[in-house]
């Protein structure tokens, strides 16, 4: 009975691991192929089944004028937009979440929970609903095809996440902490900055992590709101997905682009195992 259970457990975990890894292995193998080895049938192992070629990787750093696909610039654009918009969202979102968790607001029938819902409900809106008005609005502000325009749009995307996580988190930070600080003569801002914030690091990390993930993986807004001047990574890579797809450079580019966030997976796991995150995610 016990051994049967253990066998089942390990087979389930192994099976799922294989499913998780499969597309990555395939992408790694494909990135070393060229036109002939892709079209001559399905093969997996370089040297054994096909002659490896490094064309797919080389092409990534060449400028477009030499037939390359320059993903270096989109890469930095993506990093910039993600980090700036996450930072702004977290600062504004944390402040708002603190207010919603500690003070009572009342204006007619609008209460705290309604304001919180207003923040979070922005996530319900599919990107497509906002994309046309945003297109016209950014055009009017001449922010179309600029990094600033994208940052603005991404704040709408990310702030709800920050508010959602931080409201939950602050609700669990005991009120006595700030009350003690106030009695000790802090003003509310000092109490927040010196006492509450240092106690909220795990929450901030989770919020930051989710903001970075959801900022980094967005495709649609970048697709609609930028054209030639500014390109984000997902758009640059999907642009390769034309009728004659260069599978090899596509795979290489995809692998390069998913790499940075895999680091995030390690960070998350570290915090999970130390038990710091468990309080922060409800």
């Amino acid at each position, binding site marked *: 009975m016990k051994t049967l259970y253990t066998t089942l457990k390990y087979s*389930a975990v192994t099976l799922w691991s294989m499913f998780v890894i499969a597309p990555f292995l395939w992408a790694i193998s494909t990135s070393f192929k060229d036109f002939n080895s892709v079209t001559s049938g399905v093969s997996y192992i370089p040297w054994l089944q096909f002659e490896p070629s490094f064309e797919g990787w080389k092409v990534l750093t060449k400028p477009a004028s030499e037939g390359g696909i320059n993903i270096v610039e989109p890469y930095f654009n993506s990093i910039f937009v993600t980090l700036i918009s996450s930072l702004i969202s977290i600062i504004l979102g944390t402040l708002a979440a603190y207010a919603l968790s500690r003070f009572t607001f009342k204006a007619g029938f609008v209460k705290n929970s309604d304001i919180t819902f207003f923040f979070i409900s922005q*996530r*319900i809106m599919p990107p497509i609903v*906002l994309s046309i008005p945003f297109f016209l609005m950014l055009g009017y502000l001449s922010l179309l095809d600029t990094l600033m325009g994208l940052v603005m749009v991404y704040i709408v995307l990310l702030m709800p996440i920050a508010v959602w996580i931080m409201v939950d988190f602050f609700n669990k930070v005991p009120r006595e902490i700030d009350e003690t600080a106030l009695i000790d003569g802090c003003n509310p*801002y000092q109490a927040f900055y010196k006492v509450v914030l240092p106690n909220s690091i795990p929450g901030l990390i989770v919020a930051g992590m989710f903001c970075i993930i959801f900022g980094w*993986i967005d495709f649609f807004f970048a697709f609609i709101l930028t054209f030639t001047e500014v390109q984000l990574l997902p758009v640059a890579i999907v642009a*390769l997905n034309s009728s004659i797809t260069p599978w090899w450079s596509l795979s290489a580019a995809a692998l390069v682009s998913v790499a940075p966030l895999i680091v995030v997976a390690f960070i998350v*796991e570290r915090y999970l195992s130390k038990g710091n995150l*468990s309080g922060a995610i*409800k």
Partner: protein
Amino acid sequence: MNFKHKFVFLMPGLLVLLGILIFPIIFTVRLSFSGWDSFNPGLDFIGIENYIRLFTDDKRFWESFLRLGFLSITTVFLQYIIGFGLALLVWKEIKFKRFFRVLFLIPMMTTPVIMTVIWRTFFHESLGPVNDFFSLFGMAPPWLSHEVLALVTVMIVEVWQWTPFMFLLMLAGLLSLPKEPFLAAAIDGASSIRKFIYVTFPLMAPISIGAIIIRLIEASKIMDTIFVLTSGGPGTSTETSSFYIFIKGLREFQIGYSATLSFTYLIIMIISLTFIAKFLTKIFMKGDAE
């Protein structure tokens, strides 16, 4: 607490969000009453004509909406079962625990469109490894060009991409559970199955509801994956609401009508998510109420 301070905390965020969103929202509502299209660009006023068209003469929208409902409920359900199962498996003693935990988180960290581009080659009818495997049995399923199979492919990709999210929330939940109920159950000599039914599951109920609702919200926006994988096809067999609105608005430039679709869609989503939240609370919390 002083009246002034609370607004200093709340207002920056609220004003920025409102400032960015107020125009798009009002404009969408206004646009939904106009006949703006490529022949007739401009904000005219045609009353509720668009809404009449939507409710009487647009089967395709309602079909795409039902398909979205089916797709998101099924995939979220699968993600919940698998994610919860995996979390339970790596919760306690297992070899290479930390390795599996990291591995199970990874798909969530990858960009859906980019991975979908890879999946497209993965499911390629003649050059992909999936059909290489099926060819051993003399089969070649047309993954992306068959109505049902295309939907299945989209679901596989969605489950791959987002099960980690469920896994993360459920594992974090499991790790934060109090120890006492488990000790009590152990003293009573409860079997592991009974322990799960009477202790773990009820304790996880609030987290489960939260996780399912969040995933439903996110899943209902599915768009990137379909855009790259099938472009809604073959025919309209994998078209979801977002994708249909995209086609109407940005492919056919019926901007007024697509605003009508967007607005109607939002209202339905908010109402149905509220109902789903109530419904889930009812099932999951049954044990508590008694």
